[in-house]
């Protein structure tokens, strides 16, 4: 498979007569973009806002982030099964508005979305303080079922992101990134001496608005499967998650997965990257045992010698993490796990809900309970009072002057467990 990412660097976003990208500025025709989203009749109100790095702006509550992309080859569209016809992705040319992001904003579950500050001390913890953001601020029609609300917000965000890229796709790329790799047998024949490494990407798959989609299929009731890394980097995975903000893998994160990128960069040099197993975090014990067993089965069938496992969320998924580490180690496959920690506001509590002696290599992406003081912002997009209900927030978090005292976990992707950020924990 050969994937070309044709990236146009976006350094600013502005409203404009015509939606286009010129000299690094993304111009958006506000009404046309609103109309694109408003085709969905279950939205009572749709508005768009812009937020740029460095501005004194807070966005709350955010559910998902999506990078504007569209296929230049094949059937067009993006995110197969959602905004593109069903079919395999990962091949051909993809147009990317690099540096732009669509953020979906609206109080769905009321407790498992997060916020982003575009400047100040909270900004360093999220990648979306550094992107040029187009924010979809929506309200559903009266009495809309939360599952339907989540669905229209998820699909609306994808649709807007693809629409923006579609309007701009004739712009010449600033850079073209190429990802090329053959099938497992082809690559194994090419690099017989290199250790075979597989990546297990754990996903929140727990129903009740805690879902992840692969090729538009809710993977909660399915078994783990195998993806070529190009498929992950080209929109096969979509977040449908209302989990704690800090460690949800947004749709934006999936196409930027740093573990996939790092393994790819070493492929054919230090290791043979076999592929990605998107796997489940079930709500029943047998489901956890089944998924971790299937992860091992796939890895063994492919001859894996090493595995990297990343978690999504915390709490009961810590058991899935432990089961994965135990299964792989007991089968003689070296495992490294990547996870955040819920170690309490003082960092002194047991940081995972579960533990196992086989989990010998652990990379921490930070303590979700770390407290943070964030000042008032000049502008607030969304509903600032929702901090009272977000994980990491409390009734007293929002003060009269607009400043907040919150846990890290209220910030979108602050402890992303695919290792996107720079936060970690020190050895002591």
């Amino acid at each position: 498979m050969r994937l070309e990412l044709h990236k146009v660097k976006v350094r600013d976003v502005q409203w404009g007569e015509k939606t286009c990208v010129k000299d690094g500025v993304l111009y958006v025709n506000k009404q046309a973009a609103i109309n694109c989203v408003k085709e969905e009749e279950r939205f009572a109100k749709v508005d768009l806002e812009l937020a740029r790095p460095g501005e004194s702006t807070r966005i709350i509550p955010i559910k998902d982030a999506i990078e504007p992309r569209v296929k230049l080859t094949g059937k067009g569209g993006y995110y197969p099964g959602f905004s593109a016809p069903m079919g395999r992705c990962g091949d051909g040319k993809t147009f990317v508005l690099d540096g732009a992001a669509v953020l979906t904003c609206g109080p769905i579950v009321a407790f498992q979305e997060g916020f982003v500050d575009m400047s100040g001390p909270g900004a360093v913890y999220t990648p979306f303080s550094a992107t040029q953001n187009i924010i979809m601020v929506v309200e559903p029609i009266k009495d809309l079922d939360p599952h339907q609300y989540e669905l229209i917000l998820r699909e609306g965000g994808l649709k807007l992101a693809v629409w923006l890229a579609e309007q701009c796709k004739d712009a010449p790329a600033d850079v073209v990134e190429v990802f090329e790799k053959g099938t497992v047998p082809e690559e194994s024949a090419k690099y017989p001496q290199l250790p075979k490494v597989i990546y297990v990407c754990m996903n929140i798959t727990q129903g009740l608005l805690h879902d992840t989609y692969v090729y538009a299929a809710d993977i909660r009731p399915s078994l783990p499967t195998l993806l070529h890394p190009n498929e992950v980097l080209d929109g096969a995975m979509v977040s449908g998650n209302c989990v704690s903000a800090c460690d949800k893998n947004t749709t934006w994160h999936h196409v930027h997965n740093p573990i996939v990128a790092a393994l790819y960069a070493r492929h054919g040099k230090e290791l043979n990257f076999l592929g990605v197993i998107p796997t489940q975090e079930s709500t029943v014990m047998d489901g956890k045992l089944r998924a971790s067993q299937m992860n091992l089965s796939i890895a063994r069938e492919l001859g894996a010698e090493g595995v990297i496992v990343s978690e999504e969320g915390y709490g009961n998924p810590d058991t899935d993490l432990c089961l994965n580490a135990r299964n792989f180690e007991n089968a003689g496959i070296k495992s490294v796990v990547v996870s955040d920690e819920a170690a309490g506001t003082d960092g002194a509590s047991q940081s995972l809900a579960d533990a196992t002696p086989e989990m010998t290599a652990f990379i921490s992406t930070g303590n979700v309970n770390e407290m943070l003081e964030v000042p008032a912002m000049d502008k607030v997009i969304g509903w600032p009072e929702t901090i009272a209900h977000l994980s990491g927030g409390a009734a007293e978090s929002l003060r009269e002057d607009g400043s907040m005292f919150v846990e890290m976990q209220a910030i979108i992707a602050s402890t992303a467990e695919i290792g996107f950020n720079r936060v970690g924990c020190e050895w002591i």
Partner: protein
Amino acid sequence: MTREIENAAGIPVVQIATIVPIMLTVGANRIVPGVAIPHPTGSPELGKAGDKATRRELLLRAFKAMETEITYQTVFE
């Protein structure tokens, strides 16, 4: 809490919980596996009668666990 009640008051505690490994890790002594994280003590998908049957069976098992002498962490399947 389970351990503290046992330690402080000497009252045997049965923990009904879905994710048994976590219960083992935190040191619960009498463990009855629950159904699922969103509904540990019932089976709503089985309808009213099925749900009641699940709850009754779990409760009877918990009573049995409470009455059973143990010397180490025990899972009552």
